[in-house]
């Protein structure tokens, strides 16, 4: 990361810590939601941005994680255990789903994961003995650590932010490791990666499973944040939203999901004037963005800053038409 990037990261961190002191409870709820969704989007970015696989299952993993934490904590298990179980369960399910699903690529995978999301929704809705069906689970408690309760909104925000920070650092570290390099290699040139002796299938599977695990952890925070979960929250809508977050922010950029999640959470608030039409405007903006800058907001900033700094044009992000890579990225992180 260059100096400008480091300065930006530090100022964003200061802003994130200071924010709750200037916000009303609803505002704090919104930024807590941002922190939680950013974790899920970061996981999806591993799958999509680094390993180059379109997944529409991330919302389902958030759902599995949320239900796991809700059910386990209500059964009397400590939160930390339930939270770890949510992550572990989603990692395992991601692995099991990925094993057959990754035999197919891109659009096929998108539909297989879409099918998975619908299946999870059906199970959550129909298995009333476990999930209480359409009535959902009410009164999910927020955890306390060594006497520090996260029940007040600012405390829960700091808890979410702290978790986001820890998971971000872990992900950052992983991406700098040979593993992370392998993920990027898979996306940029799978054939080359294979010929260099990478077990591409295992690494793709790994990226998918870790991304799913992060989705589960996000779900583990989502449940105590909203304190009431029901199946329709985790239907296709959430998976679409998470996918759009990653794309809008800039997939393949480490901070892309953070930006995308912020936009997705705040946009409905900013566009109160547009009322019910905001989704229409949002969708239209995404379509326009895909046509002109498929690498997202950070991609746009990257491109503009390159033009300004070096005053030379950059190559446009062109993949060959209908190529197997179908990659939208010109740069790694």
């Amino acid at each position, binding site marked *: 990361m260059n100096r400008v990037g480091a300065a930006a990261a530090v100022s964003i961190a200061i802003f994130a810590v200071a924010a709750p002191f200037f916000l009303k409870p609803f505002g704090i709820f919104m930024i807590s939601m941002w922190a939680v969704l950013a974790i899920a989007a970061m996981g999806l970015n591993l799958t999509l941005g680094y390993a180059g696989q*379109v997944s529409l299952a991330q919302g389902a993993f958030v759902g599995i994680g949320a239900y796991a934490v809700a059910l386990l904590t209500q059964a009397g298990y400590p939160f930390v255990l339930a939270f770890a179980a949510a992550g572990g369960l989603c990692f395992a399910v991601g692995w099991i789903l990925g094993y*057959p*699903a990754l*035999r*197919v*690529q*891109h*659009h*096929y995978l*998108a*539909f*297989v994961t*879409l*099918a*998975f999301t*619908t*299946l999870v929704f*059906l199970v959550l809705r*129909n298995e009333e003995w476990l999930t209480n069906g359409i009535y959902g689970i009410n009164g999910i408690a927020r955890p306390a650590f060594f006497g520090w309760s996260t029940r007040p909104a600012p405390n829960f925000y700091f808890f979410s932010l702290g978790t986001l920070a820890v998971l971000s650092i872990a992900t950052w570290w992983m991406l700098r490791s040979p593993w992370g390099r392998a993920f990027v290699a898979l996306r940029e040139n*799978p*054939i080359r990666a*294979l010929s260099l002796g990478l077990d*591409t*299938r295992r690494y793709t599977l790994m990226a998918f499973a870790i991304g799913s695990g992060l989705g589960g952890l996000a779900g583990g925070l989502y449940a105590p944040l909203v304190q009431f979960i029901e199946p329709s929250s985790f239907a*296709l809508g959430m998976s*679409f939203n998470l*996918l*759009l977050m990653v*794309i809008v922010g800039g997939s393949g950029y480490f901070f892309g999901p953070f930006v995308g999640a912020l936009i997705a959470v705040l946009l409905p608030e900013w566009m109160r004037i547009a009322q*019910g*039409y905001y*989704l*229409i405007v*949002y*969708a*239209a903006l*995404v*379509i326009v963005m*895909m*046509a*002109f800058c*498929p690498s997202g907001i950070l991609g746009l900033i990257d491109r503009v800053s390159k033009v300004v700094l070096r005053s030379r044009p950059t190559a446009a*992000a*062109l*993949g*060959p*038409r*209908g*190529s*197997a*890579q*179908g*990659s*939208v990225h010109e740069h790694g992180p």
Partner: protein
Amino acid sequence: MASFIQLLVSGLATGAIYALIAVGFTLLWQTSQTINFAQGEFVMLPAFFILAAMNAGAPFWFAALIGIALAVVILGLLFKLVIVDPMLQHGVLPLVISTIALSLLLKESAKDFYSSQAQPFPTLVPATDIHFFGAVISTQSLAVLAVAVATIVTLHLLLDRTRLGRAMQATAQNPTLALILGIPVRRMVLYAFLINAVLAAIASILISPIYLAKFTNGETLGMAAFVAAIIGGFNQVRGAILGGVILGVLDNLSAAYLSSQYRGAFPLLILIAIILMRPQGLLGRVEERTV
């Protein structure tokens, strides 16, 4: 047995509608590698065009023609020019994202500009029942089946028996060679988009009396189209037809005999099974894969 025949006929009718949607889906894929995630919404929308035209005072048959025409212009021509063309240079993925956003856009538009309530939609024929060896079969199912079969036969004749259709097939199989042979490839791709819009509009007219016209209809229909295409084979029109029919029949039978709560799950399980055991589909050709 009687109820089995009833379920079979209504399943065939639904399956024929799925087949129409799936055929359009595979046409777009074959000619331009467009995966249309908004395909379900393409079927949901024309019903609202028709209802709007009828609210303006048009009789049903005229409103249906207006609906098909609007579908061809908006879901065929404009979709190709405004959404697909600028995106093709970026590869498959941005277009996938874009059609996902488009599906959201169309769904919300139908909700905000027409109604969020399910709208009754006129049937093609007066709904009466025919008794046939003890089974009760609705004329509606038969009419749906007849229109769908006629549409598919027409399309088949167009693709196989006319010069235009052969040119389109050549475009799908090998665009470069087609261009060398003097086939106007770009126009053929455009035709595929227009045909897809017509098929979607016809499917809309057939399915809306059964499901009612509702802005969320696209979700299940789009999924059904894709599952049908996968089952039959993505690169074959015949495959999409077979897949649609299998899906419609299985959907009806499983809902009746196994579990109605998990009705939506069976097609998805079939999808996963097919992808595991025969990724190219029942009738599909194996496509080259990079890894």
